[in-house]
């Protein structure tokens, strides 16, 4: 599984950081930062799906293998 964050779309709702802090951090302005370089380890895949399913701006995409 790969996860993609569109920083242009992110408005800092902070849902991804709250639901999947292993995959997303936030910067000083509250904007999301992706912590993995795309590949999501098996144990975090459910969290990646959850982050994508809760982003109000549709800024996170999960690409299943």
């Amino acid at each position, binding site marked *: 599984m790969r996860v993609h964050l569109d920083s242009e779309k992110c408005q800092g709702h902070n849902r991804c950081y709250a639901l999947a802090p292993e995959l997303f951090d936030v910067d000083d302005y509250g904007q999301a930062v992706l912590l993995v370089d795309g590949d999501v380890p098996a144990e975090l895949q459910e969290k990646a799906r959850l982050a994508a399913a*809760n982003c109000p701006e549709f800024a996170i995409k999960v690409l299943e293998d």
Partner: protein
Amino acid sequence: MTDTASRPERPGYVPPVFGDSPEGTHVWQRVPYDPADYGPVSDFTTDFDHADPAYNPVAPEVWKSLRDGGCPVAHSDRYGGMWVPITHDTVHEIAYDTEHFTSRAVVVSVGRPGDLALPAPIGGAPPITSDPPFHGVARRLLLPAFAPKVIEPWEPKVRELCVSLLDRMGDVTPGETVVDAAVQYAQHIPVSVIRQMLGFPEQDEELFRKFVHDTLERIAEEPGTREGMDDLGEYIFDQIQDHRENPRDDLTSYLMGVEIEGVEMNDDIVGGMIILLLIAGIDTTWSAIGSSLWHLAQHPEDHQRLLDDPEVMAFAVEEFLRAYAPVTMARLVAKDHDFHGCPMKQDDWVLLPFPAANRDPLKFEDADSFVVDRQENRHAAFGLGIHRCIGSNLARLELRVAVEEFVKRFPRYELAGDVRWSVGQIRGPRELPVRILDVAG
């Protein structure tokens, strides 16, 4: 005009415009609308009025009936002309379109600011009343003060406040004692928190609630007659002066010290931002807390789930926000625009009912049902696009802690009388009598 002598001379450098607005932008125009000519709403499709006292108590039913009737955008001649998109797609599209829709005014009233032909670099309460490009400049000044990691440390203070409000309710006899969860609890929480953040005196909390009422509920009164608005401006100015004389570590001092391109913001801009923080965070959050407690009073199964499984709270908070989103924003049409067949004219109002978008069955499964652990929840309670609520992290913290402490203290309670709902763009219970059925030992 601002003194430009101290600004750096650089090729191609255009100093940001703040402090001085183009002539005419602060002129308040009366719109051709007299509420007395209209009376109560008979048909929300063609005569929508969110400030009809009958609207907020049943708003979700109004949206459903509009949707079922095949009306994605309602209209009204009130307020000089107003459009009301109610689907997620239409709300989303307008929130993203800053070319055709200006944020110069975000609360519908019988007055609207300024000549829309002129740019809106600042507005009265930046950045909520700003359009690009100034919006981005003003927003970046405020964002660090409300970033998740700055807000998280406030949790113990918020919890302490909630516990002390519950303690203040005095002795509780299960099955008999009735408390008002809005008046005695919800309304105090955001007021106290933002007052502490801004570093304003504790005894002024009652005053803030009056300011909020003047700004958001008395929208049908003549512009210039809402004396509370002048009082608010003077009050903020006095507080800025006090901080200048007695500097301290708080949000007000932070804003006074912020510089853009080496230039400090003037008192008008600092004051405008403080007005925004004071007004925007108070009855919005108190409405969200009140609506959540109102829901739990009628759904003991959801209440029990929160007690049995505290991990559900993270999802429940988002579901409260989705199902009972308190905030509807507004825009003005910046230039004539055909919006999916709706002939929108410059200066028309457009309501942005994010709460209606949150119940769109095309975007949410079982949209009108409350699902306490809803897993997929892209709700728009804090808005969409560049004006996403800057205080959302603080609001979430206050909502979560307020609900946690209330349900823990009172493991069972029920409605105990008539609920009085707010009037206008912020939706939530203003009086919420509940009978306590069980109290934590």
